């Protein structure tokens, strides 16, 4: 069933490979950039711990994480032995074919889903700051709230003083070019504007970590580029840790510092790769560089196997 995904990856020499994936689920090793030790800890505990003890500027540490869903057709492994270290301030991208469990991984980090085994450690946020805020795929703005109320949602829930809410929400709506639409309802906005409100809602909440689940996938190409520009611009102000899911290699290379490519079902790490481009980035200028095209080409070469494997599985299931 998952023969293709077990195939050893053969990463091209031009690819600056960050992780070293050996094809065996237990032997995924991470280059020890931060002096981390992996051995000597129990890995069976199912816990999402918030700990200040994470050393070396690591924000998120995922160890041997697996997620098995109980379905009518028996257990379904969505995520299989994921190991990850995400340093603070990293714009981390996850790329994978549809159905590889990338959204599940994000939902586990967001606290919306429980994992089956392994550990997730997230560095404790500063006092009074929320751990994470998610930008959801598709329309997630409350239709019954105005643009302002939507963007202020997280802060209102936390019961912050009005003046602080006003400053923060006003700032991010302004940055998102929505200052004239405070009192509009989502159904009065275009899809691109709605997704900008979603971004403003997450940024205004000032979380430690931003989780983004294919936030631009429903947008047309022009809007997508503009929103990527805006996201990068807003992100540059604070440089928060970001975990961003996409199925677009272009988007991953454009936005990310580091890309994890996942296998088709069950979702595993196929390889990781660093994006060498400097910041701040301009989307179109970046895309004009030959190095950009090369990197995208390389990743695509690796991903193609997985997409084909995913397709074969779908056909095998008679979809």
């Amino acid at each position, binding site marked *: 069933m998952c023969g293709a995904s077990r195939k050893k990856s053969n990463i091209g020499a031009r690819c600056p490979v960050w992780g070293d994936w050996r094809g065996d689920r237990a032997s995924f090793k991470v280059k020890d950039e931060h002096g981390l030790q992996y051995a000597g800890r129990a890995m069976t505990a199912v816990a999402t711990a918030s700990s200040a003890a994470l050393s070396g500027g690591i924000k998120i540490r995922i160890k041997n994480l697996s997620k098995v869903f109980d379905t009518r057709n028996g257990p379904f492994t969505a995520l299989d032995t994921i190991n990850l270290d995400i340093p603070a301030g990293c714009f981390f991208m996850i790329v994978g074919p549809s159905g590889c469990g990338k959204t599940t991984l994000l939902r586990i980090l967001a606290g919306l889903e429980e994992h089956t085994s392994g550990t997730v450690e997230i560095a404790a946020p500063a006092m009074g700051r929320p751990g994470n805020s998610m930008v959801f795929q598709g329309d*997630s703005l409350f239709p019954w709230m105005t643009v302002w109320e939507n963007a202020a*949602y997280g802060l209102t*829930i936390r019961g912050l003083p009005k003046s602080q809410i006003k400053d923060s929400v006003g700032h991010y709506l302004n940055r998102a070019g929505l200052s004239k639409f405070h009192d509009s309802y989502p159904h009065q906005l275009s899809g691109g504007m709605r997704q900008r409100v979603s971004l403003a809602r997450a940024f205004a909440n000032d979380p430690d970590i931003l989780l983004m689940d294919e936030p631009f996938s429903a947008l047309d190409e022009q809007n997508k580029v503009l929103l990527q520009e805006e996201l990068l611009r807003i992100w540059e102000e604070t440089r928060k840790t970001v975990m961003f899911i996409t199925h677009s290699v272009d988007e991953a290379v454009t936005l990310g510092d580091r890309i994890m490519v996942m296998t088709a079902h069950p979702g595993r790490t196929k390889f990781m790769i660093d994006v060498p481009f400097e910041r701040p980035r301009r989307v179109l200028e970046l895309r004009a560089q030959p190095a950009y095209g090369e990197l995208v080409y390389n990743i695509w070469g690796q991903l193609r196997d997985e997409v084909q494997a995913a397709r074969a599985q779908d056909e095998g299931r008679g979809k």
Partner: protein
Amino acid sequence: MTDAVQTTVPSEIRTARPPARIAASMSRSSAERLMNIISPLALIGVWELCARFGFIDVRFFPPPSKIFGVMWTMIQNGLLEKHVWASLQRLFWGILWGGIPALALGVAMGMFRTLRMIVEPIIAATYPIPKSAILPLILLIFGLGESSKVVMVATGVFFPILINSMAGVLEINKIYFDVGRNFGASGFQVFRTVAFPGSLPLIMTGVKLGVGLGLVLIAIAEMVGAKSGLGYMIWNAWEILSVETMYVGLITIAVLGLLFTLILNEIERLIVPWKAGR
């Protein structure tokens, strides 16, 4: 961005077409509005003529002119006001006593699966019982006073509001609950910011149905053991064979029903502005 593009492209067509279209739609809507007024008036006119020329039995169908004459007298001597006021008060308390628990329970059932599993079969079993059939039981428990009428209305209002608020919460896209959870909303905050506002459109539908049913039930309840109210007025008119008064009662109930619908539509526009224009 795309908006700007769209507005510049069809500029030629814009100047030519919309005025004609607006004019056409306006005349159509005003024609429809005119028909709304004309058709009931025409019915009353035909009725009047039939009664005058003896096509229908005036003992059962007195001419409208005579009914409105009686109505006018009842308005002048304050009798109609007294009965309407009595019914409205019972209706108000009944809607309140039935509606608020229904709303709270309905939304809670939508939010909590376990509660839904426990309460739903009870609702499914009691809902189809005709509310008029439990009037004797209610009279037995609450006596002949005001409370039995209020309870009668409350039982009628309860079910449509409960069922609709539950459906309203279940209709809400799961993603909104995820957003609430991700942004750290507590159970009550989820209720206040997601479940309640999200289910308001269907709750309003439930309220409209409930108020309609309340009007039906108040008339029935007042026919037994009441000394005031529109139901009493109609029943009393039967006992003294004053058919016109009976019609006055029926027309008043109809007008009240219409007024309630108009008022509730207006309230709906105010509290569910995000559904406007959809």
